[in-house]
């Protein structure tokens, strides 16, 4: 029982409940905005965890979906000059993300797994360049400024609760996916692809579904991001955005879902803190480098991230299925510690 402590529904419930009372305790606009951005990034990170942590595939183009969400909402609202087009924009983003995920998945999931990382990276770069060059639609390098937002999002506290609700709904949805037969099959693919295939499952289709779900959730997060920032530029599509998702999931804990939420919090607060330190020493301007080093240390020595490592310490036995290093070793029939 104790090993399950951190994934315990109760604990996650307490976390969400604690977040729900924050506006009563503090009315700092800065803190609320920061927490909203953490909620949105956490959803983005969780969608990435579905791929990395639960399906065992490494995408380096996840920003594509986030960016599609942000641009769909931004473009639709500014072109129609109607803030309520937000909802249509998110609908369009979902469809676009699903179609894109299907195309890219069909192209790249058929070949070796490392190809997938490479090809997603190339497609993300392509999308980035399209957004940069197609300036009549996207505003090019200047991006889309002054996005009008619906009335309800102008109130910080209201937005805060919408953001929190968004996070909770997406968390429950992804949890539901992971605990469903589909999710179980995905985790089986992560553990031993050949075996799942020989059992008669169409592995490609399962991976495609995983990619589509992850893409759609990420696109919704992107849409929310556009509303929060009221501004969209090419940075939503860049490799840095994908690296954000990667850092969040790895630091928080791969294959735990909650880890992405924790990771989003850690990254956002630490980024803020390190940026404020940059006046004292220029090395803090390169905060990404500091994160890169932490990331490398975690991948090498704590492959389960914060959540997984705490869980191991807490419980007597580690949960070996949640080890990113285990995948290949398992396939070769070697034991994983």
């Amino acid at each position, binding site marked *: 029982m104790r090993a399950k402590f951190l994934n315990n529904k109760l604990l996650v419930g307490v976390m969400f409940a604690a977040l729900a009372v924050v506006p009563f305790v503090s009315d700092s606009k800065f803190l609320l905005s920061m927490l909203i951005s953490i909620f949105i990034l956490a959803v983005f990170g969780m969608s990435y965890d579905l791929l990395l942590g639960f399906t065992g595939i490494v995408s380096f183009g996840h920003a594509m979906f986030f960016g599609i969400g942000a641009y769909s909402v931004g473009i639709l609202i500014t072109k129609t000059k109607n803030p309520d087009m937000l909802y249509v924009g998110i609908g369009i983003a979902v469809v676009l993300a699903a179609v894109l995920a299907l195309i890219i998945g069909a192209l790249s999931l058929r070949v070796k797994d490392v190809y997938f990382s490479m090809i997603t990276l190339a497609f993300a770069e392509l999308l980035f360049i399209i957004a940069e060059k197609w300036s009549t639609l996207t505003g090019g390098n200047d991006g889309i400024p002054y996005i009008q937002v619906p009335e309800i999002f102008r109130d910080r506290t209201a937005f805060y609760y919408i953001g929190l609700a968004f996070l909770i709904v997406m968390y429950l949805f992804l949890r539901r996916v992971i605990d469903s037969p589909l999710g179980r099959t995905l985790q089986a693919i992560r553990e031993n692809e050949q075996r799942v295939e020989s059992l008669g499952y169409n592995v490609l289709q399962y991976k495609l579904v995983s990619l589509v779900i992850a893409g759609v959730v990420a696109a919704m997060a992107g849409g929310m991001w556009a509303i929060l920032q009221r501004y969209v530029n090419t940075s939503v599509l860049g490799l840095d955005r994908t*690296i954000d998702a990667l850092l969040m999931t790895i630091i928080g804990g791969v294959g735990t879902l909650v880890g992405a939420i924790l990771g989003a919090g850690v990254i956002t607060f630490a980024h803020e803190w390190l940026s404020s330190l940059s006046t004292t020493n220029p090395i803090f301007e390169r905060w990404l480098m500091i*994160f890169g080093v932490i990331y490398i240390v975690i991948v090498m020595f704590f492959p389960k991230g914060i959540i997984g490592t705490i869980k191991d310490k807490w419980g007597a036995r580690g949960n070996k299925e949640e080890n*990113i*290093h285990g995948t290949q070793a398992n396939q070769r029939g070697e034991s994983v510690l």
Partner: protein
Amino acid sequence: MSLTLNLLLNGVALGMLIFLIAAGLSLIFGLMGVLNFAHGAIFIWGAYVGWATYGLTGSFILAILAGMVAGFIIGWVIERFFIRPFYDSHVAQILLTLGLMLVLTEGIKLIWGPNILGFDKPELLQGVVTILNDPFPVYRIFTIAVGALILIGVHLMLTKTKYGIIIRAGVQNPEMVQALGINVRRVFSLVFAFGAALAAFGGVISGPSFGSIFPELGMQNQLAAFIVIVIGGIGNFLGVAIGSLLVGVTQTFMAYYVPEAALAVNVALMALVLILKPEGLFGVRR
């Protein structure tokens, strides 16, 4: 010289630069199954170390040597300390090398700053020559010549020397090579470091060719190299060479006629190859 020939030569020169990165990447992948996402960062480290050495000494040859040594050392360290513990896990390798790419690129910004630096051509290679009554930069010719020399040299090394035979055998079946009493681990390390040195060499050569260097250049060229590898077929040396030339030439022509679509065409080319022949044009399905 007609415009077509001019573009073609420029394309070949660009293709040779891409080839220098892609060759190491492909060899490493073919031999060890490791896709090194830090390869572009090594390329740009080579360029920066070369730039610094060139600035200090004024000697382009020393710049090339320093860049290659830097690349070799970075490659060796990456293989020894970051790849070797994780030969069993592709996921960990991909994640780690991407992290290294991040740290190495940020490291450049830390040392040399994030801005664009001008990289002048050495005096001897400045100016233009006349080909069929039209001027063509000497440096481009130099690039093509150097690229061709490396191509032939590595090809001969792979096919004629004992080391080359070991490497090719290792690509086919590393366990068997190990069983025959050859220390495959050491071959792995050497090939990794050699591939990295090749990329760094490409970095130093590219600097004056592009006229300037900046940290993100590494990632851009790495992407081109990835596309080349998918097109040419991974692990196939000549396939990579032909893929590089193909991508270099298409990119140059597109950059002239439809500049907006230059990268799009390469990605489209890659998508096409993936649909028709997923193992690459010259690859063998394994």
